[in-house]
């Protein structure tokens, strides 16, 4: 916006004619300096504006929706029982500050979110970080197990035609069963085997996260060209050497996008696994108890927190990718 307003301001000051020519290069040099010492800054500016505009629109419509959805309840439950006459301003302020609104306003969620972090000790179930720790642990354990399972399956599939034909259809079929249907079964079976707490939940997280890793790694392990495989052949390399020195490194660019998907899926699995156990800890459990007691603010806060956790986990994977593949990029 600043760059847009600058040239007209300059032309207003300068009379039309030859002086205009003088201003064109100055505007050009201005643009260049912006690009030079702020490649990042100018890019953020360019991409930040549309995002900010959408955010403002979203917030405004959110407030509008909060008012529309809460108005009748505000009149019925708060203002009428009080017995006093009320104006439309009263209705508005009440709808945006109710204790159990149908749709809480953004500032209410922000306040509830913040108070859960600072007003309660870390080991209290009222503190969202307590739930983040529980769900995060399940997610990470499930993610690691899922990645390992995915790697082992992919290596097996790539090295054996029989396994390729025998396993792949089942792996694909496994993902067509909705996780919500399979979670209680897994929990019951593992529970009868004496597994409780973290393990069954991690298994469900693993169930969701191994699939993208398997598919991507099968593709990645097969990505080396004939010439590279033949070269290893001329070195009389064993299968394991070819796997370790050629196939695995060649598959890394395929692996990381799958890990990003996998860790997000693992988070979904971890939260879903918390629902049927009646667990009292974890973001999924927090969502469930919030809906039991009609505590919409708690639901929304837990939702925001799980989104932040998902963002943090995928960013962590992306940073690892950036580090691991740093030498393969061309400048």
């Amino acid at each position, binding site marked *: 916006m600043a760059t847009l307003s600058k040239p007209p301001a300059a032309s207003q000051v300068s009379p039309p004619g030859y002086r205009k020519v003088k201003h064109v290069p100055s505007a050009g040099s201005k643009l260049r300096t912006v690009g030079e010492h702020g490649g990042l800054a100018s890019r953020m500016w360019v991409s930040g504006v549309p995002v900010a505009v959408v955010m403002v629109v979203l917030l405004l419509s959110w407030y509008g929706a909060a008012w529309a959805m809460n108005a009748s309840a505000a009149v019925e439950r708060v203002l009428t029982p009080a017995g006093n006459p009320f104006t439309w301003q009263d209705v508005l302020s009440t709808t945006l500050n109710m204790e159990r609104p149908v749709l809480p306003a953004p500032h209410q969620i922000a306040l509830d979110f913040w108070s859960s972090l600072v007003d309660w000790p870390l080991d209290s179930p009222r503190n969202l970080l307590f739930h983040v720790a529980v769900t995060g642990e399940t997610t990470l354990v499930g993610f690691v197990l899922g990645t390992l399972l995915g790697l082992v399956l992919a290596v097996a599939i790539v090295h054996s035609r029989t396994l390729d034909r025998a396993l792949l259809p089942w792996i694909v079929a496994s993902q067509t069963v909705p996780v919500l249907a399979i979670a209680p079964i897994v929990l019951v079976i593992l529970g009868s085997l004496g597994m409780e707490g973290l393990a069954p939940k991690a298994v469900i997280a693993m169930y969701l996260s191994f699939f993208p890793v398997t598919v991507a790694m099968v593709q990645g392990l097969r990505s080396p*060209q004939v*010439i*590279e495989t*033949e*070269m*290893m*052949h*001329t*070195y*009389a*390399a064993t299968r394991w*050497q070819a796997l370790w*020195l*050629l196939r695995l*490194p*060649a598959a*890394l660019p395929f692996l990381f996008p799958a890990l990003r998907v996998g860790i997000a899926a693992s988070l979904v699995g971890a939260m879903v696994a918390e629902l049927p156990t009646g667990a009292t800890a974890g973001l999924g459990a927090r969502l469930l108890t919030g809906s039991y007691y009609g505590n919409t603010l708690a639901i929304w806060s837990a939702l925001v927190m799980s989104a932040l956790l998902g963002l943090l986990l995928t960013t962590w994977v992306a940073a690892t990718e950036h580090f691991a593949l740093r*030498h*393969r990029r*061309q400048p």
Partner: protein
Amino acid sequence: MKPDHPTVATQPRSPSSPPPGGATTSPAAVEVHNASLVYQTADTPVKALSNIDLRIGEGEFVSLIGPSGCGKTTLLRVIADLEHITEGTVRVNGISPHDARLARAYGYVFQAPALFPWRTVLGNVMLPLQIQGGDKAQNRGTALAHLERVGLKGFEGKYPWQLSGGMQQRVSIARALAFEPKILMMDEPFGALDEITRDRLNEQLQQLWQRERRTVVFVTHSIAEAVYLSTRIVVMSPRPGRIVKVIESPLPDERHLGLRDTQAFMDVAHEVREALADGHLE
């Protein structure tokens, strides 16, 4: 490692002006006897190689030349155990190609450098040594020495994409030489490079051969390249893939690029061209 003194290394050969039978006096590095290779396709079997007889002595630089489909690359791949003949025998250093490959008797340079992008130049040259096993520090020293021999000292820490195409191919030559194989096989190694780079690499390859007198089997479709580099030129022809003529080069062992303008060079080139044309007419 062989001694780095070209004069000493040249001595045993330079006084000998090898007559046509000269090559047969040295022990055989490669012996192909009555070899044929037939591909079974849907309609008719394709004869990629037909009754090939070829003997390559130790220390020779032999080029296989011919038009596309003449089986020159197939023949090289057969010797390297990347493909298998359906008839006849092949011996590499007196043993089967399979055993020779397991014994790491040869280094193979492909048409493309095929460097691993996740390894540095040094890491790429160390790859075959790493597969062979052995002390890491020692392998490192060997790889560095090989890089120096192809004129890439100081580039060991670079990644392949930071190098030009010609430099990449030199890395791949250093890699093929890593475990000091007795035979170097090259499949159109400079085919994808521009002519200027190609000339320079030809010169360097010639000097490398001068110094070490390693047996080289070289596939090319450039007449000038074949004549400039080889002690013997094997002219091949397609349908079926066969040898039409073997030309002993009368050129001196010590060569420089200026040689290509001499009458002797042009005579050999002419002979090769004639042989290629004959192969087509048959």
